């Protein structure tokens, strides 16, 4: 990750979102981007390309697996789905993430003295 592209999100956020979305249903790259933007009500701007290094990282960690399939629009696409390890990882990451958010929002909620 040392040479990773500068991202708009903090490190690791994209991976959690990818895992969460794929947990609902297996998707290919393009559909995945659409789903993330849709789900975030277009509040998050994800550079579409940055998705692919993230997918490779998740593949390397064996949290995902991929296979070539044919999409609903009749294209040859590579569909990603969670592995068992991916599901476990997602669960722990989500709870860690929520802890972090909680901490951050408590700090942000400080009233001025």
């Amino acid at each position, binding site marked *: 990750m040392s040479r990773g592209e500068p991202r708009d999100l903090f490190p690791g956020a994209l991976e959690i979102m990818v895992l969460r979305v794929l947990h609902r249903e297996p998707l290919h790259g393009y559909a995945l981007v659409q789903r993330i933007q849709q789900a975030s009500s277009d509040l998050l701007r994800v550079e579409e390309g940055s998705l692919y290094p993230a997918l490779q990282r998740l593949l390397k960690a064996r949290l995902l697996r991929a296979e070539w399939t044919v999409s609903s629009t009749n294209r040859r696409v*590579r569909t990603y789905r969670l592995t068992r390890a991916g599901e476990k990882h997602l669960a722990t990451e989500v709870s860690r993430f929520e802890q972090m958010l909680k901490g951050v929002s408590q700090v942000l909620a400080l009233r001025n003295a």
Partner: protein
Amino acid sequence: MKRLRDLFRRRAELGDLNAEIRSHLDEKIASLIGAGMPRAEAEQAARRAFGNVTHVEDAARDVWRRPRVDDLVADVGFAFRFLRRSPVFAAVAVSSLALGIGANLAVFTVINAMLLRPLPVDHSGALVVFSRRDADTGRTNSLTFGEYTDLRTRTSSFVGLVAHAGGDGSLQVGATLVPNAGERIRYARVSSNFFEVLGVGMAAGRGFLPVDDSSVDPERSVVLSYDFWQRRFGGDPSVVGQPVIVFRDVPFTVIGVAARGFRGIEADERTDAWWPVGTVKILFADRLAGWNVTVMGRLKPGIPLAQARADAQVAHAALVVDEAAAHPNWNDARRRRFLTQRFDVSSGRTGIAEALRAGFTQPLYALMASVAAVLLIACANVGALLLARTAARRRELAVRLALGSGRARIVQQLVTENALLIAIATMGGVALVPLALRTILGYAPAAAATALDTAPDLRTLAFVVAMAFTMALIVALLPAIRSTRALEGALSAGTRGRGGAPRRSRVHHWLLGSQVALSVALLVVAGLFVRTLQNLRGVDAGFDRKTVVLVTLNSGAATTAIARKVVPALETIPGVQSATFYANLGLLGGGSAMSDCIIDGTLPGASAEVTCAMMQVGPRFFETTSTSIVAGRAFATGDEPPAAQVAIINETMAQQYFGRWSPLGQRIQGKLIVGVARDTKYTSLREPAPRMMYTPVGGGWTVADVRFALHSHRTIAELTGPIKRAIVDAGVTQSVTAIESLGAIADATLARERLLAKLASWFGLLALVLACIGLYGTMSFAVARRTNEIGTRLALGATRARIIGGLMIEFGTPVAIGSAGGIAVTLAVSRLLSRFLFGLGATDPTTIGGAVLVLGLAAAAAAFLPARRASGTDPLIALRAE
């Protein structure tokens, strides 16, 4: 492990990233067009949203990157290209290292086979071997079977003791005897507990029944080795239980086949068949108790060697006291010698090969040291060449360093290049081993050469790894570290690189000097060994080596009765002047036992010596072997016992026993001395003649160890057919096992000297060539680096001769110092060396001078060529290059 799997997953998981991204873009464009955007605009928008495709691909690939491995792969590729670009350098470096590695590995393989390889039996570490030496002479005195049975009852530290007596013989397969149909085998007579105590299983049948070998009638049975069973019977299991082996006219039943891979306990022989030691009684009714045997034992679990040794030594001490007491007729000297014998118990893990190990252990380690020196020279050589090359690449390396490469990264690359050299050289060296082994074993005693187990094992593997590792340290790492040390200043210093130059050349001179030193030392050693061999070949043996042919029947098992039939038959062969026979060895057949030879009555000046070597000889012995009689007469008809009791002694014995008194007319052991024969070599050309006494073979005797000698000017090839025919015609059923010229036998006693001389010569030559290559290379690089200095000097008016002279003197200094160092090395080991020399000292000035001269000339030639080339530099070109 995980890293290795990643290596294969990389390709699978990365998939066709490019196709995937294209598909993504197409889908995006299609959806944008679907939303009403014009195509060109949609394409642009899709790319904008995606980001830089190339960067994304790189980033995705980077996920899988393993920096170290990828760098290494790149380095190896680079190193290959680099070596291909300089094929001469690569060839010289690889071949010199490969020769060194091959020679080292071959010598180590022989050492491993002869000295290190454990017997293939259960817990070989618990095996011990008994030995006994004369306190005065250090000679080995065999134990007898009688003593073995005694030791069995007197010791308690051993699971069991086994007796073993190996021999060469001829056996015949089949139930009936056919003349000349025997085949030579190596056999052993063993105590019946042999296989049980050693823990050797049977591939078929059974081992010997455990009986008391000394009293019970022996089984007429034989156990075959797996190899012999395969070779002779094709592994047919039905031969077990059949009487299909005839040995010394006695039929034996095959009762078993020893486990595959077990070749007996002799490291230098492959035993084909084992008989119970009791079978000695079939042939020689009363000789079993006095039969010489090797005794091995297996320690009881938990008993250390030292304790077992003490136990056995106490037992042996009691045994010899009893034995001496049983011989009241022994004189004091004999008694003292017998009682002071040194008894020892040592590890028997590697089996026995006493004669071979006694003769070759030290020479082999000496050869190992020489060949290691050759490898060191090769390493120094290649190291110097590499150093010179990296020096020439200083600019390239400095630029890379300046561009941000880490020093460690550059060292890694240089080390990879050098390690690649070593890897290729190691493979080449390993490939050379079979050839090198054949060469070495070609100089070794013939039996040992075929019997030694030279298959590679874990020890050889460990040796190769250790060797490659050491070379890597010398050849690869040091130059790499050294040459990057001073790089920081290299760019600013300009092409001449004044900064590091003097130090580098000092390293070169050191490398050069030590190469020269080792080469001189090896050349001196080679010279000494070669001259030793020459001296020994020229030594006066006392008998005629050229015209005497020795014939052996059934490996010496012929009796005197047969001999009396064979001799007249041999004398009828055309071209044979005379024939004779003799018993109890001699004529270089060895025979280390000395018999009692005590002078009857007392003589002034009589020696305290009481033993001599005995030889029983047939008629015309001295005439046939051209051994001259210097006083008195040779044996004549009517001299044979019991009618007469006469003897002939040799000069050494006459001198030691009688001094200036005439031995003629004196009596020894009741025999009248009728003549004095010239000294003849007895066990080898090397050793001085022992005291010897000859007696005629008596009329009714049955001596079993008989050999024939005949005098002829014809060659062995011409004589072989007629000899075999004559023996069959004489009605003798025993087969001829050897027809050899006495010269060849004499030469065979020089196996060790020949091995040393030949191999030392090879290694010396190799060292010389390597040192010259090193000198040539170093000189070439040195003058290349100094082109503009030389050019400047030429421009300023220096003559070519002066330039050449200056360079030669500069490089002559390390050569001279190295030569002196080499002489110092040989002087330091001269004590060790002199034990293997004959007829000259280890500090022989001619040999040392010759070695220095040869090296000096070769070095001068190697240095002259590059120096002359340098002196031909065009000053203009040299200066323009600045």
